[in-house]
């Protein structure tokens, strides 16, 4: 008998979430599927392409509602991307849907040549990305994808942090008519506070403002940064929290403004510490001669800890407690 799945949040973190009025939403993957179905019902040129992944991509209802708008290629990710490029070149708005681990590695050459280099506007949807698959192990983790795609010219990289960002990212990608990679997890997420409803590709979102330090985070780690910021407010530390839903193009302006106004910057991502958001931010800061104390929190360059996504997050300090601790050390 297996132990019950551990929570992603400690009871203290849950209490803080409650105190600031956060409510629990759905998994971003479900938002993706719902949004895509709505788009496809309104436009018969919207096509989902799957690699035996309609179940894990929550696209079962899509397949039932719009059988003419889903293309199944079987367990063949290279084929998935190549066929998607062919469809998109003929005017279809294509969402190629596959686990992030396979999509961003097995079919990387198709992404590079058939999509990015050929400038064909395929939307590549990485489902259960990062360490969403947790205990299934490293074969099923995508901790390299942001680095791999950042090194390929001409592809937008969208990593939504909550249901609002996920919904808007899908709509924005569909409308952009440019190659895009969208990264979704499968765990339910808290809805982040919203000052306004604006979302645009290339824009970071300031979730919270403070003058001592800034968390610059992406995807499913943003909530942990926000909880840490709220946690530290009890110790009179003011922390800015920036969500970066588009890792490329990166919103250098918002990032630099935040970094200039505080003395510590911590980036957080569900990705190897190499080549992802952290190094993108570091490059931005260094080249602008902005030098706060700086730390990249992510998955270190080692044999990844085993366990659920929650276990792995906690192990590497991607949690309210872990991030509060790192921040306190740097602020000392």
């Amino acid at each position, binding site marked *: 008998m297996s132990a019950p799945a551990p929570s992603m949040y400690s009871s203290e973190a849950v209490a803080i979430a409650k105190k600031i009025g956060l409510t629990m939403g759905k998994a971003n993957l479900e938002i993706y599927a719902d949004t895509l179905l709505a788009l496809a019902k309104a436009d018969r040129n919207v096509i989902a392409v799957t690699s035996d992944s309609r179940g894990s991509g929550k696209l079962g209802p899509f397949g039932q509602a719009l059988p003419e708008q889903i*293309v199944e290629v*079987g367990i063949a990710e290279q*084929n998935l991307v190549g*066929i998607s490029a062919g*469809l998109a070149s003929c005017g279809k708005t294509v969402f190629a849907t596959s686990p992030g681990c396979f999509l961003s590695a097995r079919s990387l050459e*198709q992404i590079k040549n058939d999509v990015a*280099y*050929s400038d064909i506007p395929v939307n590549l949807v990485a489902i259960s990305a990062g360490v969403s698959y947790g205990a299934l192990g490293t074969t099923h983790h995508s901790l390299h994808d942001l680095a791999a795609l950042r090194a390929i010219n001409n592809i937008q990289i969208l990593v939504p942090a909550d249901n609002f960002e996920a919904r808007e990212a899908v709509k924005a990608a569909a409308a952009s008519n440019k190659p895009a990679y969208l990264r979704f997890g499968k765990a339910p997420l808290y809805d982040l506070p919203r000052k306004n409803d604006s979302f645009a590709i290339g824009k970071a979102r300031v979730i919270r403002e403070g003058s001592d330090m800034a968390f610059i985070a992406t995807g499913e780690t943003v909530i942990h940064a926000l909880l840490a910021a709220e946690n530290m407010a009890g110790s009179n530390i003011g922390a800015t929290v920036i969500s970066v839903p588009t890792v490329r193009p990166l919103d250098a302006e918002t990032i630099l403004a935040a970094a200039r106004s505080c003395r510590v910057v911590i980036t957080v991502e569900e990705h190897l510490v190499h080549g992802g958001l952290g190094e993108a931010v570091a490059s931005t800061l260094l080249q602008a001669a902005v030098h706060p104390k700086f730390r990249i929190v992510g998955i270190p360059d080692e044999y990844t800890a085993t366990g659920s996504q929650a276990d792995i997050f906690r192990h590497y300090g991607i949690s309210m407690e872990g991030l509060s601790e790192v921040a306190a050390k740097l602020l000392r």
Partner: protein
Amino acid sequence: MPLSDDQLIRKSLEYRRTTLEIIKHAGAGHTGGSLSCIDILNVLYNRVLRVSPETRKDPHRDRYIQSKGHSVEALFTILADRGYYDRKELDSLCGYNSHFVGHPTRKVPGVEFNTGALGHGLAIGVGCALAAKKDKSDFRTYVLMGDGELAEGSVWEAAMAGAHYDLDNLWAIVDHNTLQITGRTRDVCSNEPLDEKFAAFGWEVVVIDGHSIPALTKALMERTEGAPRAIIANTTKGKGVSFMEDVGKWHHGVPSDEEYAKALAEIDSILASK
């Protein structure tokens, strides 16, 4: 006015000459494979494909995807002849800031996809053919591959999908010249018998002389209801230049001044006799 077989045969000779000219001028190129597929491209562009410079963005145009991208000099030569750009532009082949690079790119008018990494074209072709089916458009999709290229597993992923979706608007043409960069394909890592392989994957297969204008015309124009068609076009690498024919070193060999003069003299003497 449709061109006769004799006129197309003459065109092939001219195309071979131009291909050698641009490779010699650039000092680079894939000579052997370009010469082996010239008759295939000739028949496609002059007799089969419903494409033109004026309609190159028409959603209902036929699609040609050159998966064996390295034979780009043949394609660039024929697109110039078909009026997509001036022949003079090919003097920039492989030069600084030229979009005529050593593999097809969409920067060149008439090129559908950026190819050159082998094993990509057939999946793209499946996507185009599926799009035509979904839109109830009658455009056809042709994909040219090399026989060495068929070692790429992605080709067979696409072959499965092409048959699964009954894509009778899709043609895969194999430039079966039996040589790849290392040597005979059957010695490098044999993928024969090609016809039986495609048939086993659910394709209708024809095996033809890939230098025969009538045979190419028939194979490229005919279709079978409910199944994609694979054309195994038996060709000779380096076709049309005696000392290049079936010699592996011409895969990407560039002729010396002496070889170049000899090659052009051979072609010119045949042209003069026509």
